[in-house]
């Protein structure tokens, strides 16, 4: 049984890393697209000869925008306040719990478990509590609010229930199994990550084994989650694409390559099989005239 838990847990970590990398690489390697932005205010296009001006919105502006959106869920706050409240509790809890796990792994290696402070445990409980209340609130909203329930597929309700169970499992493991003692928890984690006691690793206690399995489910889910997808929104060539195409520049080189690709669309006004450059510069009527010559 312990072997299965080990395989599932470490397998899920490897899967999460590989699948996320593949997804990110696939998205980032998507071809250059037509310029299709929207703007929150004035842009360079308000200037005469705008192409002679410096491209606006530097890295600091982009970072600020991302931080405001991600840390405070700014857009939900502005547009959907009642949903934002629970969603925000859930996200704050998530961020804190992720940081708590980082602390847990780091502290287990660098801190002597016997001298560990209880503050770490309080941090974990508060994070779990925030995430649980937020998650439960979101589940309730998704169930009873007609707008939020609309188009929300059954599988996602299962997801939220599983998430709440995972949080309860984590709390149970820390509070009951490790008797809410930082020293015991850190000592256990230290043994796990340093492979200090293989026998113990192969025969984990039920509480931590169950939590590891549930955590594995989330690691496997992560590459398909909206959390990962949200970052795509801020991908620089999508959300902040203000770099103009200048003659001889890298954008122009990419466009030339794309214009050389074959067109496969089948409608009568399109010369299927020719390249984009040919189709765009030669009208069907011209092509048929040429063919008759």
């Amino acid at each position: 049984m312990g072997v299965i838990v080990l395989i599932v847990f470490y397998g899920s970590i490897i899967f999460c890393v590989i699948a996320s990398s593949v997804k990110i690489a696939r998205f980032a390697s998507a071809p250059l697209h037509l310029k299709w932005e929207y703007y929150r205010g004035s842009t360079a296009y308000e200037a005469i000869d705008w192409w002679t001006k410096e491209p606006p919105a530097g890295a600091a502006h982009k970072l600020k925008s991302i931080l405001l959106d991600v840390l405070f869920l700014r857009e939900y706050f502005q547009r959907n306040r009642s949903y934002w409240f629970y969603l925000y509790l859930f996200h704050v809890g998530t961020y804190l719990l992720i940081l708590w796990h980082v602390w847990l792994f780091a502290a287990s290696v660098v801190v002597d478990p016997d001298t560990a402070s209880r503050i770490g445990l309080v941090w974990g409980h508060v994070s779990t509590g925030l995430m649980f209340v937020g998650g439960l609130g979101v589940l309730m909203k998704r169930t009873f609010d007609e707008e939020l329930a609309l188009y929300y597929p059954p599988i996602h309700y299962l997801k939220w229930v599983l998430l709440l169970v995972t949080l309860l499992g984590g709390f149970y493991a820390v509070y009951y199994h490790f008797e809410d003692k930082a020293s015991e928890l850190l000592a256990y984690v230290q043994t796990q990550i340093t492979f200090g006691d293989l026998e113990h690793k192969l025969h984990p206690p039920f509480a931590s084994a169950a939590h590891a399995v549930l955590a594995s489910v989330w690691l496997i889910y992560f590459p398909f989650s909206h959390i990962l997808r949200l970052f795509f929104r801020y991908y620089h060539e999508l959300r902040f694409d203000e770099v103009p195409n200048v003659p001889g520049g890298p954008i122009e080189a990419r466009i030339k390559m794309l214009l050389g690709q074959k067109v496969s669309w089948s409608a009568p006004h399109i010369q299927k099989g020719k390249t984009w450059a040919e189709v765009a510069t030669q009208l069907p009527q011209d092509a048929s005239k040429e063919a008759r010559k």
Partner: protein
Amino acid sequence: MGSKRVKVADISKDADKKLLELSRSDLAELPGVDEGDGKKEAFKDLTEKQRESYEHALDGVCAVQIPKPKTKEEEEQLVEKFLAGLSKLLSKEDNWTFYQQLMLTLENCVKCQTCNDACAIYLGSGKQDIYRPTFRSETLRKIVNKYLKKGGKTFAKFRGNDIELNWATIARLAELAYRCTICRRCHTFCPMGVDNGLITHELRKLFSEEMGIAAKELHQSGTVQQLKVGASTGISPLAFEDIIRFMEEEIEEKTGKKIKIPVDKKDADILLVHNSGEYISWLENPAAFAIIFEAVGLSWTLSSEAYGYEATNYGVWYDDVQFSRIALKQIEIARKLNVKKIVVGECGHATKALVVIADRILVDEMNFPRESALPLLEDLVCNGKLKLDPTKNDFPVTLHDPCNMVRLMGIVEPQRRVLRKICPQFREMTPKGVDNYCCGGGSGFAVMSPMNFQDWRVTVSGRMKVKQILDAFSDVTDPDIPKYVCAPCSNCKGQLRDLLAHYALTENQRIYYGGLVELIVNAMPDVKEPFIKWE
């Protein structure tokens, strides 16, 4: 939300029955406008012959005029074709032009419904389900997930992909692609970066580029005609030259100014390109441009060559191939004339198409400088290059923000600075700027009037704009006071013309519409007679 609930899965059912029947009382309220009996249908019904011949089972409106398939086999072939097109949309080779944004939009939606309240059509309709921006996207998403993804049919309902792909679904989806103006206000509301307007665009593209199905006004009488004759209005180069001569006479008659409009002048600084609809419906607009440009002595020209006197590019709304063809033709004209840059007149979609979207198809010498006319006008008015008398514009003026130039290009302030300078009674609409509501004529709607579609667009898609206009002038309801809605965009003007007529706002409240340059010329002290005629 509207009282008549429609689920996404319903789109596949009861092929002969409308998904939605609307009465006037279902629509959003328009205070101060008497629309008669609330129990009456919201817009006129199709004739029996039209109902028999064309698909209309979405809401009883016919925008695309798709003939009903005659046999089951024909229906099945169309379904196959749709699926083939959908696969191409999801291929980065076939659809490189929008692949990345489409993938993000298909995958990122969390079904929070935040975007719906941004949609002028959804709000105007009294929040009817089928007009939600999410309804269209969710339909497409379910089809993709169920029919194109591996294992999509396994636990389809549990995973939220409860939809059947049949001809009813496709016919309704084709019409649904023409119930959104692609104003993309919903996109700005989405916390996840989902662009429901793009879904509309991509659906229209699939229908056009794979199945040869598109709104006639956009394709046959739009881009096809433009590529054949030179302009989507059908104006030929010869006719254009006649119009210019007539315009010179009109200018002299109205203002006393004898102007020789430069046409095909080589090496000028500016090639000015208008939506050719201006020459037919609002000649005072290009005339005003000519008066202003000549008054300050700019080096400029118009082109009389095919494609050179037409700024429109309807391809931007439905077909990447047609869009590219037209943009290249327009650039070619500027190169031939050896001008320094192209300046696009008061036309939103044309400006956005040529200045921004085409940026990613133009290479080498075709990557030609091009910009909107609004910054230039601001420079002339606000930097004292034109002598102007604001007291000549002492009447209430409000500004309609064309989506394509404002939200989708970020040209927000130049037109405002001009109006603040020359219109003492300028007042903003609410919301304004990048948050504006579409006029309801965007994405080609303003030029589309088949069967009962015009009735739908003035009743439903333009409703929020009417409300905004009435609100903006709520302190000056006196019908003796003329009021001016400034809309620096040809398509928006086309829609405003129909809205003001439908709701009798010119007749009852003396609300007029026009462009920005007309107000500038109206404020010129040496133009003795009012340039704006209030008729």
